[in-house]
Each structure stands twice: as structure tokens, then as C-alpha cells.
């Protein structure tokens, strides 16, 4: 057990180190940074949806909340360490409250989706309408649809003058993603993660076995939100502006698409889905022949119809088929019920 864990951690570190070394030679670090951030955002939903069975339509709410928290705190504090921590904590607390309300109310799948969607919309509508000068938190004016520009970006902790930007910022984000990935791995290996998967498979059974299902789902939901909030704060640093579009339905939709395309029930799938589709969008944005949204939509429809389990499991199955018995036996139970609670 511990040996396989050590091997997996080592493998993750080696592969990610190789990727962090090689990728900047292929794609500019400015683009790569946002791909890494989106990867983290995809991972946040992949964790709660793929392993917890919680389909959250409002992951963008936590992303936006993280970004706004960072921006507002950075303007008021003028240093980036505490705002970064707040950007993780605020969405987590918000999600814990929202999750407690939903999970202790025993809301079903669809209702959960709708409530998270509605909460995202409320935030979007509210932030969008805060253009007036009366909407301010400390020194930070919320700015409505114009967003908040001009806040302090990431600096070396303790030295507000030493900004981290450009290539070093890419390395910071990439390392952050690797750390989050390892933490998620650790979480899923722990008994908490195993119980979460058990709840995904059969909520009633886990409840009857004596686990507090609602509490565990709430905690998992909050952890997902914390990761999304971190991604939001990193995004705010990258874009150097936060706008209400972070909360939009389109953003929420995209996160779900990333997870579907990459593959649910895997850790790496949502990251690859996010980075891959975001890069595809970037490439598509350079042509004006076919509308961008159209292609995103087509991808989603085709995946739901033909590859409902996503790329990563499909590729894994293909590799197993090609290499015959060399691989491990497919873990059938793992994915069966992910999508339907």
C-alpha cells in the first residue's frame, strides 16, 4: 500500500516536472498559465462530481468568489499573502453554508443542480448591478459590469514590492496545481475519500452504515469550492482584472464540459479536459470562419451521445485493449454510478 503510494507520488512529480520543463518550449507561458489555472478549476469540479457524485452547476460561483475576494482584499490590504488565503477560505465557507442547506435538506440531484445554478445567477446579477459608488468594500469599488482592475498582484510573501509575474508566475501556478493534485490524491486515498466514493455509489447504504452523509458531502463540497477559489485567485492575478463574467452561466457550463470531455471519476481527466478545451478555444478564437460557441456545443453533444465516460477512461480502456493482459483489470465498479448519483 504505502509503496504504491510512494511510487504514484514519485511518478506524478516526475511527469509534472517534465511537463513544466517541456511545455513552455511549445506554448507561450502566458497562455500556459491560464491553461494550468483552468486545469485546477476542472479538478475542483472533477473532485466533487466524479468522486462525490455532487453535480454542481455553480462551480463558477466559487471561482468568481475566489477571484473577487482576492481582488477586494488585495486592494484593501496591499499585499498578496493574506488575500490568497482569504480567496481560498471565503468560497469554502460560502460553499459549506450552501452545501449544509442543500444536503441537510436532502435535495435530490436535479434540484441540487438548479439551486447551484440559481445561486450563481444571483451572484452574477448582483455583481453586475454594483456599478454605483455606494457599492464598495473598504477601498475597493465593486464596479459592476466593468469589474475591478488595478489591484496588487502576487508578490513574494513579506515583500510587497517583489511582484511575481511572467515566467515565474507560470511556475508558481504549475507547482500550485501539482500540490493541489497531490492533496486530492491523498484525500481520495484517505478514509474520507473512500467514504465519499461510497456515498457516490449508494447514499442510503452509507447512511445505514452509520456515516453522516450530509456532513461528509458538505465538507467535500467545501473542499471543491476551496480549490475553485484558489483557481479564481490565481486567475485574478493572471488577468489583472476581475469581471462578473467569472460568475456567468457560460463559465459554469464550460467547467462541466471540461469534466465530461476529460472523464469523470479520474483525477487527471478534468485537468486535461480543461487545459485541452481551453487551448482549443484559444486556437479557434484565432479564426472567424465558424463560431466558437457552436463547436463547444457540438463537442458536448457528441461526447454525451458517443463517449459519455469521457476521454481519459476511454483512452485507458483502449490502452488496456491494445496491451492485452499486461495492464490491471478494469475496475468496473468505479465509474458505474458516477453520473446518476
Amino acid at each position: 500500500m504505502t509503496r504504491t503510494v510512494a511510487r504514484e507520488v514519485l511518478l506524478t512529480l516526475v511527469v509534472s516536472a517534465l511537463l513544466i520543463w517541456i511545455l513552455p518550449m511549445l506554448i507561450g507561458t502566458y497562455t500556459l498559465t491560464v491553461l494550468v489555472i483552468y486545469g485546477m478549476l476542472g479538478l475542483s469540479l472533477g473532485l466533487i462530481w466524479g468522486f462525490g457524485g455532487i453535480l454542481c452547476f455553480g462551480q463558477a460561483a466559487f471561482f468568481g468568489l475566489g477571484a473577487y475576494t482576492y481582488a477586494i482584499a488585495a486592494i484593501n490590504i496591499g499585499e498578496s499573502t493574506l488575500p490568497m488565503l482569504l480567496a481560498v477560505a471565503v468560497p469554502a465557507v460560502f460553499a459549506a453554508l450552501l452545501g449544509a442547506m442543500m444536503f441537510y435538506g436532502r435535495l435530490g440531484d436535479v434540484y441540487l443542480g438548479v439551486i447551484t445554478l440559481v445561486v450563481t445567477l444571483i451572484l452574477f446579477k448582483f455583481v453586475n448591478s454594483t456599478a454605483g459608488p455606494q457599492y464598495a468594500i473598504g477601498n475597493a469599488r465593486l464596479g459592476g459590469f466593468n469589474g475591478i482592475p488595478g489591484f496588487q498582484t502576487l508578490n513574494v510573501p513579506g515583500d510587497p514590492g517583489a511582484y511575481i509575474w511572467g515566467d515565474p508566475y507560470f511556475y508558481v501556478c504549475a507547482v500550485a496545481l501539482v500540490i493541489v493534485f497531490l492533496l486530492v490524491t491523498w484525500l481520495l486515498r484517505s478514509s474520507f475519500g473512500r467514504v465519499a466514493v461510497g456515498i457516490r455509489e449508494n447514499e442510503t447504504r452509507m447512511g445505514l452504515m452509520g456515516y453522516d452523509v450530509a456532513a461528509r458531502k458538505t465538507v467535500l463540497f467545501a473542499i471543491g469550492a476551496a480549490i475553485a477559489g484558489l483557481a479564481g485567485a490565481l486567475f485574478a492575478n493572471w488577468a489583472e482584472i476581475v469581471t462578473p463574467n467569472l460568475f456567468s452561466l457560460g463559465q459554469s457550463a464550460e467547467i462541466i464540459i471540461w469534466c465530461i470531455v476529460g472523464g469523470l471519476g479520474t483525477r487527471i481527466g478534468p485537468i486535461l479536459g480543461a487545459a485541452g478545451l481551453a487551448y482549443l478555444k484559444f486556437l479557434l478564437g484565432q479564426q472567424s470562419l465558424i463560431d466558437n460557441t457552436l463547436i463547444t456545443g457540438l463537442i458536448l453533444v457528441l461526447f454525451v451521445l458517443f463517449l459519455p465516460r469521457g476521454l481519459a477512461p476511454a483512452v485507458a480502456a483502449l490502452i488496456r485493449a491494445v496491451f492485452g493482459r499486461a495492464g490491471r483489470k478494469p475496475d468496473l465498479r468505479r465509474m458505474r454510478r458516477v453520473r446518476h448519483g
Partner: protein
Amino acid sequence: MDLSFVILVEILYAVASLVLISAGLAVVFGMMKVINLAHGEFMMMGGYVTITAVGLGVNVFVAMLVIAPLIVGLIGLVVERLVIRHLYGRLVDTMLATWGLSLVFIGLATMIFGNTTTGISTPIPGFAVGAYQINGYNFFIIVVSVLLVAGMYAVLRGTRGGLIARGTMQRADMAAALGYSPDRIYMATFFCGSALSGLAGAVLAPLVGLVPTSGGAYIAKAFITVIAGGPALIAGLVSSAASFGVVSQIFTFAMSPVIGEVALLVAAVILLRAMPQGITARLFRGKL
């Protein structure tokens, strides 16, 4: 006196437009259990069909009440055959597939009509009540939605087709055993649902400027209205539209339209938390 009349009309109008927005979804989601996230885009297409038809010289009422529902219904039919019918019973998958479809429709509309706002003027003039000006078109919307609900009730309650449709949605295998084809009935019901969405989009089009992404404005409202309504189709639709319409209008009058919208959404969250199965699961049980 004048003010209270104006407020009453505004509240009725808010309720009526909620009914209109949600009627198509009530059929597709409430009856068929297909989570149609492309509902707003069906409405958007209804609006574009109307504007295009009016541009070609068709009478605006014919365009709104006949052409738009027909064409959007046909589009819905194609969508059902190509995508939806593979996904019946897979709730989450229909949700994702229709979300994809909505993106496809937005993309197509952007390519065809461009990303600018288009619109037509309201065909009914306003009139004055005391010191206030009332939009005459609001009355038209109230009348249309009353007729719509009455029509839906008549069809589902009174006709053989409505009975067969309701029966099939409850027990498709039993309907099949009695010699009806569930496949066709699902198809026809989806057609009706999309046609209703098209009608709603067409009727609301003169009030709002249309952009390809207009659908997004309706989708959340439609969903919470239908879900908060609960299992009974028409009683649920009317009761939840009434509660949300009143709440949002009161807050709109007291504070601002944005607060009104937010109040509607907050009311929905509270209502769903209190009655997770919707209003008609607790009140008006056993009604249609």
C-alpha cells in the same frame, strides 16, 4: 387608485410572462422528464423567426402565433430525433446534451443574425390611466397566457390525445402494451413543448431586444418555476408563477428591477428548501 390599478396590471403581467416562459418547459420537463436546458434557445429562435417573418411582410400576429410555434416545433422535432430520443430516462445526460444544444443554437444564431440586437416594435399602443402610462402589449401577454393555460388544460383533460400522452408519460410500457407507440407519443409531445417555447419567445420578442444569447435570460426563471411547481403540470405552473411573480414585482416596486430578480431567485431557493418536491407535492395534490 390609479397607482393600485397599475400595480395590479404589472403583477398580473409578471405572473403571465412567467407562465408563458415556463409553459413549454412544463411540458418537456414536467411531463417528459427531459431537462431541456436549450429551452431558452427555443424561445430565442421563436423570436428570430417572428422578426424574420415580419421582415418578409407577414402580419405580426400571424408570425407570432402561427409561424413561430410551427417552425420552432419542427426544429424541436429534429432535435428530438437526432439527440433527445437516445437519452430518455438519463436525466443528467439530457441536461448536458441540451446544454450543448443550446450552445450550438447560440453559435448558429450568431453566425446567421450576427451579434447585434434586433427587434420589432410592439404592435399594440399604450394608453393612459390617470397619470400613468400602461403598455397595451402587457394586456395582450396576459390574455395569451390565460388562453394558453386554458388550452393546455382542455387538451390534456378533454382530448383523447392528451389522455394518451399523460398515460404514456406515466407508464410507457403499459401504453405500448395497449397498442400506442411511446416513441411517436414522445416525439409529438416534444414537438408541442418546443412549439410552446417558440410561441413564448415570439410573443415576448417585441418587448425585448433580441441577441443570440437572449435565451439565457429565461432559462433559470423557467426552471425554477417548473421545479417549484412540482408534479402537477398546470396547477403547479400557475401556482408557482403566481408566487414568484408577486414576489418579484413587490421587490421591483419597493427597490429596483435587479433586486426584484434577485428576490425571485432567493424566493426560489427558500421555497425549494422548504418544499423539495415542489408546491403541488404538498398543496393541490392530485390536480392536473
